[in-house]
């Protein structure tokens, strides 16, 4: 049997479990070793080590009232809870709790799509609704709206949005937290709060206007532990008439500066609507010369351009993005984009896919880059493993954020290339991704293993990059629970005033400290100072 949470006696833990059973029913309490292992982080950088995070049990409510009941039991016993939506973001900790011994509140049974309005282009969902669920609902009911999905698409809308994840379609929808409108929260005290216009009982605009009246509190429920969100509204994209996917390539390393500047300008003008990925096809893989150059941390543009020339003249950078809308408008946008970029010597333009909507199921199946068209996919898993290699080992995402400037992309990947090499790892791929309107994220895959020795190296790699990138002005925007204390230390300006504000809010909202202790390094008073 799993051990009780720290500080709770076995007797009290068993009593709490019996009461939780009373709330949700016996079949929805999971307290055997086998059950609890289902919530293990399969990609944990602490796999098999003493500090690996484990749940002590899990409970799956089906209603807000049951969530309130769970919270009541937790307050009575001081039982730490860890709510999850679908718990499938494996690169940021999955379903495993931030605080070992917590009871996972598995919200997957709360999986109703409560409302979809084709007219207003909105939806209201529960935490267990996955991208798969909503996509299927829209297709089955022939509702001409798109989801904006994370990639892979097996996760939950709410879980992803509350951790501030992103997607690939139009700018209004791909910052998933920004695309939400209104939420309902069970506070740690058990009270239910609806935010925005939802706090006005007869308001017809809960999913239409974000702010309501007075302070806008939604933000404090993202990347935090101030409550259990039980409903969220989202704005949805109207299905366009057509789409055109394009690739723009440039030959030299430094060409990325005008490339990104121009694309960003076009994005801000809404001429380029989709997420833009600027990647270097040349800087992927483990070619020895590539590894040497990346590992040097400061190879010159001339060195790199020579490498590119020896690689058969492949472009140094390729930007991928999509236009959506009527065909005539798309054509004009693409022409204008080409005019704006024409000044880069050797720039290449390629149309890689075009579609007219709606797609049949067969056509949707055949789309190569599904996430850019609101189609959830599992392709990413196949792309990261060699044929016949089981994806048993995993990775974490290291996600520093930089200004949308090509020279910052170069500087960051020079730095991280050297860190990977110094730690004995093949450097990660190089890409800057414009999910948000004014930044690029430079995701790095940091491998995780099933042995302590390699994971120790991986943790050192990760920690080195968190600190080093922060020193250079590129802090992370999201981080694995194992590193959340370190991550928040990077936001310690003014002697940690932000952290103290978080603690003040925590003490007020969750006086017994029951919801996700330690998430984003926000500890309840009773556990403050007890964690290394």
């Amino acid at each position, binding site marked *: 049997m799993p051990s009780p949470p720290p500080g709770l006696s076995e007797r009290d833990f068993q009593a709490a479990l019996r009461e939780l059973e009373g709330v949700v029913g016996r*079949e929805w309490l999971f307290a055997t070793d086998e059950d609890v292992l*289902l919530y293990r982080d399969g990609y944990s950088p602490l796999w098999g080590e003493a500090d690996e995070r484990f749940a002590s049990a899990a409970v*799956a409510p*089906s209603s807000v009232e049951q969530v309130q009941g769970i919270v009541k039991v937790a307050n009575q016993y001081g039982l730490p809870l860890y709510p999850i939506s679908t718990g*499938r973001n494996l690169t940021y900790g999955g379903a495993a709790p931030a605080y070992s011994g917590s009871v996972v509140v598995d919200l*997957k*049974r709360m*999986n*109703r*799509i*409560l*409302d*979809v*309005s*084709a*007219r*207003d282009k909105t939806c*209201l969902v529960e935490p*267990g609704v996955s991208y*798969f*669920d909503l*996509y*299927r*609902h829209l297709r089955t*009911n022939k*509702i001409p709206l798109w989801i904006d999905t994370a990639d*892979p*698409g*097996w996760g939950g809308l709410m879980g992803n949005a509350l951790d501030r994840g992103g997607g690939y379609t139009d700018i209004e929808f791909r910052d998933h937290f920004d695309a939400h409108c209104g939420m309902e929260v069970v506070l740690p005290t058990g009270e239910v709060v609806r935010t925005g216009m939802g706090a006005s009982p007869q308001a017809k605009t809960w999913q239409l206007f974000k702010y309501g009246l007075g302070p806008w509190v939604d933000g404090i429920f993202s990347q935090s532990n101030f409550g259990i969100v039980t409903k969220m509204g989202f704005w949805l994209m109207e299905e366009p008439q057509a789409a055109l996917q394009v690739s723009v390539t440039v030959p030299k390393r430094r060409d990325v500066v005008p490339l990104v500047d121009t694309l960003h300008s076009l994005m801000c003008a809404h001429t380029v609507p989709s997420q833009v990925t600027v990647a270097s096809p040349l800087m992927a893989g483990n070619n020895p010369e590539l590894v040497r150059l990346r590992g040097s941390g400061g190879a010159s543009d001339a060195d790199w351009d020579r490498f590119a020339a020896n690689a058969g003249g492949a472009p140094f950078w390729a930007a991928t993005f999509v236009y959506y809308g009527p065909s005539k408008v798309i054509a004009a946008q693409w022409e204008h984009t080409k005019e704006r970029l024409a000044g880069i010597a050797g720039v290449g333009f390629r149309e890689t896919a075009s579609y007219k909507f709606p797609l049949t*199921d067969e056509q*949707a*199946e055949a789309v190569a880059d*599904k996430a850019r068209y609101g189609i*959830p*996919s*599992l*392709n990413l*898993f*196949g792309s*990261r*493993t060699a*044929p*016949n*290699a*089981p*994806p*048993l080992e995993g990775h974490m995402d290291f996600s520093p954020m930089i200004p949308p400037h090509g020279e910052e992309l170069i500087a960051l990947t020079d730095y991280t290339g050297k860190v990977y090499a110094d730690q004995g790892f093949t450097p990660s791929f190089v890409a800057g991704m414009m999910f948000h309107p004014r930044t690029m994220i430079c995701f790095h895959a940091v491998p995780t293993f099933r042995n302590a020795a390699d994971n120790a190296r991986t943790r050192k790699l990760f920690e080195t990059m968190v600190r080093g990138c922060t020193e250079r002005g590129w802090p992370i925007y999201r981080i694995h629970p194992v590193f959340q204390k370190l991550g928040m230390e990077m936001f310690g300006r003014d002697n940690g005033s932000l952290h103290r504000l978080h603690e003040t809010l925590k003490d007020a909202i969750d006086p017994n400290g029951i919801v996700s202790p330690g998430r984003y390094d926000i500890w309840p008073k009773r556990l403050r100072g007890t964690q290394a």
Partner: protein
Amino acid sequence: MIDRRSFLTSNVALAAALLTWPQSGAAATRTRTPAASWPPESQLAVVDRELDKAGAVAKHTRRTGVRTLEFEGDVAGLWMREIEPLLRAGPSVIAGYTGPATLFCLDLLARDFGARVRQRADARSGVVWVLSSTPLERAVLAPISSTWSRSHA
């Protein structure tokens, strides 16, 4: 009601349907494997067309009477349209010839329906497996129907 004996029998039958497809080095059989004792609508075989001899595997499982669906690389569409509804509807058994990444995904997804991988064998270019749920397992996470969905459409 599916009892333990028929559950085990159908697993073996379905696995045999997949594992006896023609491949070099393996004993080939052309005999029709008896259909599993479960209702046909609760059985499914999925085959990734991108793998070696996928066509032959699919042909073979169809001959044994198992409904067989093919996909290319990305199983998400098949999951949404066929596999998840099958698991949600009740006890079911699914066999597959896919890449390991696909099995990894389906294994995790299917756990929400009390389903688990029961058998697995590594083939030269993929993995052969059987995944199933029974009434003995945890109740499925079936959604409660919404009455709101069409109110604004």
